[in-house]
């Protein structure tokens, strides 16, 4: 599976997975956390479009609802997938910074 499989929801999906990396959260907590983390405010429609795709692919799972709010957590596959994606970004960031330093 690749992040590009999520189409235009690739970036929201990565942000959601990152937000869930430190524990289960419900929709509103995810929105808040993602805004704090990245400066991006995901709209509710975008958030749930990405959530449904992540759930379909078995990367996250729903926990029993707390009142009406339902928390989500990473599955083992989701954790592994996030690790791979972040490692890829980490490599890319390192290469970019090295190249910039070489130009200076």
């Amino acid at each position, binding site marked *: 599976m690749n992040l590009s499989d999520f189409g*235009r929801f*690739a*970036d*929201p999906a*990565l*942000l959601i997975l990152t937000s869930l990396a430190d524990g289960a959260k*419900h*929709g*509103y907590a995810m*929105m808040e956390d993602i805004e704090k*983390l*990245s*400066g*991006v405010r*995901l*709209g*509710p*429609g*975008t*958030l*749930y*479009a990405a959530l*449904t795709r992540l759930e*379909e692919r078995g990367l996250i799972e729903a926990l029993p*609802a707390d*009142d*009406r*709010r*339902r928390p989500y957590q990473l599955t083992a596959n989701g954790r592994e997938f996030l690790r791979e994606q972040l490692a890829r970004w980490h490599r890319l960031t390192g290469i970019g910074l090295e190249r910039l330093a070489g130009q200076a």
Partner: protein
Amino acid sequence: MRLIDCLLNLYPSSWRERYKDEFRALLDQSFSGRDVLDIIGGALDARLSPQYRSSNGDNMEAKRLLQIAGGGALLCVLLMFGAVVNRTQQGWFDAGLMLMGMVIIIPVSVVLHIACHQRETRKSQRIFLLTAACLAMGIVIFLLLRQQPNGDLTLSWQHLYIGGTFGLWIALNSRLAHATGLIPHWGMSLGVASGALWLMMALVMVGMQFNPMSTIWMILIYAVAAVWLAVHLVWLSSLALAVFAPKQQLAVSD
């Protein structure tokens, strides 16, 4: 909040069954005007998603047959409708054949529909009522026209175009009014959409009695047409937004 309920109604029913409560809880905590287009985009995305387009347990083979039969029935209805609207002086035989086609195709469609949606009996009842009403209306109009001295019918591609345009108008407006929760009852939304079309046509016909058409009628007709255009522009732009919206920008903070 009424607006939130309207927006939630834009999502497919199977999506709502699974996510409605938690989505509603999220919107109760955080909702602003700028979220409206985002939610409309999300709803259209869900509607375009194959997962929410069909229910589990549907009979796909029967569904395919239903689509073919439904297409045939729709063609007949549109042809009849167009022919009635744009009546000419030539033969009525083709119209009779089309009516016979409807008599055969519509019950077949209903049976197939029940086979497809075994778990959705209410949907089957609705489609049965709608098709029965269409058929009854078609027969009544046909018989009334036959009673008139110059009541002959002929069918052509022009009629299909006219009937198709009107049929789409009614279907789109009915769906829009129902999906947005403006008219929650399915049958009523169809009735209002059809009524609005006939009202517009009546306005035009009454206006045509005057020569030249009086200014007030023209203003009224243009006003109705402007509202119609505005509604459809919103609908189409939402669709375009859902399909072609730019990706979210990722800005990782320090």
